C-alpha cells in the first residue's frame, strides 16, 4: 500500500504535463488587491480590420504599442500611445506564421517570436528586418504530421516552438524554447550561441523546465522564466544557473519586468482556455512583486467581460502603473491603470 501511495504524485505529475492547460490555484496568502480600471476602446483598429488572438503586446520608449496577433495570417500592428493605428510591420514576412511574443528592447528594436516558423526576428524601430535566429523548415519537405512521442534532441540554432525573448543590459539575447524543447538559450548580441539551460526533455528540477512559456531579464541580468506546466517561475543568473523558484503564484504563464531604477516583476496566473469548472473563481489574477520575490499585490480575475481577463498571454509593464495585457480568447488588448501604491521597501531606496 505504501508503494502504491508513493507512486501517486508521479501519476499526477504525468497527468498535468499531458494537459498543459491545467491550471493551479495560487497558494500565496493575504495578498492585497490592487485597484485598477481598464481604458475603454483603447486601441482603434484600421478600417475594416479586427484583431485576432492578441498573443503579444509590447510598448517602445515613445509609448507606441505593438500587437502581434493571430489573424487570418499572423500580423504585427503598431499603434501610438493613444491607441491610434500607425502601421503594419512585417506584412508577408517569411517568419510570421503563428504569433507567440513581441518585445521591444532598450534601443526600441522590435523582436518577434513565432512558434509557427521557429524564428526569433529583430526589426529596427521603424520595422526594417535586421536579424533572424532560428530557421523555418522549407516547404519542400512537405506538410508534416504532428509528432507524438519524445522530442528530437535540441540544437544550438534551431528552435522548437519558441515562446519568448529578452535581453540583459549588455544586449545578450535570451530565448525560452518552448513547446517541444524545454530550455532557455543565451546568445550574444550578434546571435552567436553562448549557453543553454535545460534540454529537449521536460523536467521539474531547478534548471529544468516543462513548457517554458515566458521569459524576461531584469537589470541585474537575472533571467525570469514562466515555467508553465511546472506551475512555477524560475529565476536564473546571467549564466543560466538556477537561483530561486517561485511556486506559490499558480501557473506561470507569462512574466514582465518593469523599466526604471526600481524594477517590479509581474506574473500572470492566467485562467485556462475555456474556463473549466472550478477555475473561474481562483485563476486569472496577475501578481506584482519586488525583484526579491516579495509579493506586493494582485489584480484581475477571470472574466469574458471588459475589465476582466480571458487568458492573459502577455503583459507590457514598462510603466508599472500602466499595464497593457493581450488576451487569447476575447481577441482584445486592454490598457489597465493601476492605482499607484508605495512599495514595502520603496521609501528606503
Amino acid at each position, binding site marked *: 500500500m505504501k508503494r502504491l501511495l508513493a507512486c501517486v504524485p508521479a501519476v499526477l505529475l504525468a497527468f498535468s504535463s499531458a494537459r498543459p492547460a491545467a491550471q493551479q490555484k495560487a497558494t500565496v496568502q493575504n495578498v492585497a488587491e490592487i485597484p485598477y480600471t481598464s481604458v475603454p476602446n483603447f486601441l482603434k483598429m484600421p478600417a475594416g480590420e479586427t484583431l485576432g488572438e492578441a498573443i503579444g503586446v509590447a510598448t517602445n520608449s515613445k509609448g507606441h504599442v505593438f500587437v502581434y496577433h493571430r489573424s487570418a495570417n499572423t500580423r504585427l500592428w503598431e499603434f501610438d500611445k493613444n491607441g491610434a493605428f500607425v502601421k503594419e510591420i512585417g506584412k508577408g514576412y517569411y517568419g510570421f506564421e503563428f504569433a507567440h511574443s513581441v518585445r521591444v528592447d532598450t534601443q526600441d528594436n522590435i523582436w518577434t517570436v513565432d512558434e509557427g516558423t521557429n524564428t526569433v526576428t529583430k526589426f529596427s524601430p521603424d520595422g526594417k528586418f535586421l536579424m533572424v535566429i532560428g530557421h523555418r523548415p522549407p516547404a519542400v519537405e512537405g506538410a508534416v504530421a504532428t509528432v507524438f512521442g519524445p522530442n528530437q534532441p535540441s540544437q*544550438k540554432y534551431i528552435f522548437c516552438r519558441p515562446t519568448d525573448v529578452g535581453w540583459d543590459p549588455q544586449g545578450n539575447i535570451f530565448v525560452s524554447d518552448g513547446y517541444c524543447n524545454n530550455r532557455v538559450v543565451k546568445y550574444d548580441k550578434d546571435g552567436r550561441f553562448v549557453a543553454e539551460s535545460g534540454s529537449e526533455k521536460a523536467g521539474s528540477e531547478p534548471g529544468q523546465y516543462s513548457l517554458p512559456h515566458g521569459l524576461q531579464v531584469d537589470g541585474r541580468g537575472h533571467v525570469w522564466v514562466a515555467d508553465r506546466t511546472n506551475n512555477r517561475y524560475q529565476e536564473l543568473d546571467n549564466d543560466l544557473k538556477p537561483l530561486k523558484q517561485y511556486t506559490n503564484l499558480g501557473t506561470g504563464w507569462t512574466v514582465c519586468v518593469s523599466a526604471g531604477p526600481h524594477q517590479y516583476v509581474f506574473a500572470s496566473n492566467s485562467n485556462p482556455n475555456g474556463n473549466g469548472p472550478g477555475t473561474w473563481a481562483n485563476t486569472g489574477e496577475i501578481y506584482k512583486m519586488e525583484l526579491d520575490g516579495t509579493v506586493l499585490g494582485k489584480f484581475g480575475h477571470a472574466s469574458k467581460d471588459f475589465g476582466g481577463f480571458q487568458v492573459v498571454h502577455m503583459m507590457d509593464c514598462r510603466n508599472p502603473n500602466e499595464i497593457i495585457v493581450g488576451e487569447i480568447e476575447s481577441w482584445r488588448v486592454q490598457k489597465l491603470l493601476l492605482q499607484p501604491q508605495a512599495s514595502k521597501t520603496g521609501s528606503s531606496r
Partner: protein
Amino acid sequence: MKRFITLLCAVLAAAGFGVAAQSPAPELMFDSNPSLLTMPDDIYLGEIGGVAANSKGDIYVYTRTGHPTISIGTSRAFAHGGSRLFQFDRTGKFVRELGKDSYGMMVAQQVRIDPQDNVWIVDQMAGYVNKLDAQGRPVLMLGRKPESINVPANAGRGGGGEGGPGRGRGGLPGAGAQSDVFNRPTDVAWDSAGNIFVADGMGNARVAKFDSKGVFIKSWGSRGAEPGMFANVTAIAVDAQGNVYAADAGNKRIQVFDNSGTFKSAITNVGAPGALCLTPGTNQMLYVSNSNPPEDFDSGGEIYKVRLDGTIVGKFGKAGKRPKEFGTVNSIDCRTENTLLVGELANMRVQKLTLR
C-alpha cells in the same frame, strides 16, 4: 620504377596528400555592404534562394517569403505561394516584382541570368526551371509543378517536390527519368552554344542536359560516392570551354565533366559546396561556398576562390550573422571578379562583397 613513382605521386595528390592541399588556404581580404538592397515598407525579403545581376547591373533576387500555403479543395490538397522574385537597380533600389502570384513560386532555389539577360529561376518544390525574358514573361519551361501534394507527407523529404511519374523507375537510385521531370532541382547553367544544364538536385542525383529549345539530350549520374555519382547536386556552372562543374555537397567535392558528361576530375578541399559561380572572361575563376547548414553557425561558412585546375587561391569569411559572416550561402554572383553578390538562406540577406 620511374613510372611507378609518378603514379604513386598522382595517387597521393588525388588523395589530398599534395603539398598545396596541406598548406592552409590564404585568407583573402574583403569588405561587405550588408544593406545594399532597399525594400519598400510593405515588402520583406525572406531566405535568399538566388541573387544574380544582368549585363546592365540590374539585380534579381528569388526569395522564400510570404506564406507557403496548402488549400483544402477536393480530396487533394493544393500547395501554392511561399516565394517571390524581385528586381533591383544596380544601386540596390527596389524596381519591381516579377511573376506576382505565380502558379509555381514555392521554394526559391536559384536565379541565374544568361548572356542574353534572360532571367532563369529554379524552384525546388515546384520542380521546374523557368526562363523569363527581361520583361519577366515566361518563355521556356522545363519540368512541371505537381498538381497536388500529399498531406501529411509521411514520406518525409522529397514528398513535396516529387516531379511526377517516371522518377527513376527501374533505373539507378537518383538517376531520374530521361526527361525534364525533376526532383528538387537546384541550379541551371548554359554552354556557349546555349545548351541547358540542370542540377537535379536534392531529390535526384543527376545532371540533365537540354538543347537551347529545351529538348532533352541526356542525363548522367546516380546516387553514390564514385566518380560520376552524386550524394546530391547542389549547384552547377559551365566554363567557356563547355566543361561542367557540378557541386556535390554530400561528397564534399565539385565534379568536373566534359560537355557530354564524361568525368574529368574532382575539386576537393573546399568543404561541402552549397553555391558555385564562374567569373566571365578568359582567365576564369571559380567561387565556391562551404555553406554552413542553418543549424550550425560555429563552423564552416567560408567561400573559396579556386582556379579551374582546382588550385585554391584563397578563402574568406566564416559562419555567423554579422557583416562579413555568412549564414547558409545559397547563391553567389561573380559577374565581376572582385565584386560579389552573396545570397544567404538562414540570414535572409544579400551582401555585396568587395575583394581587396
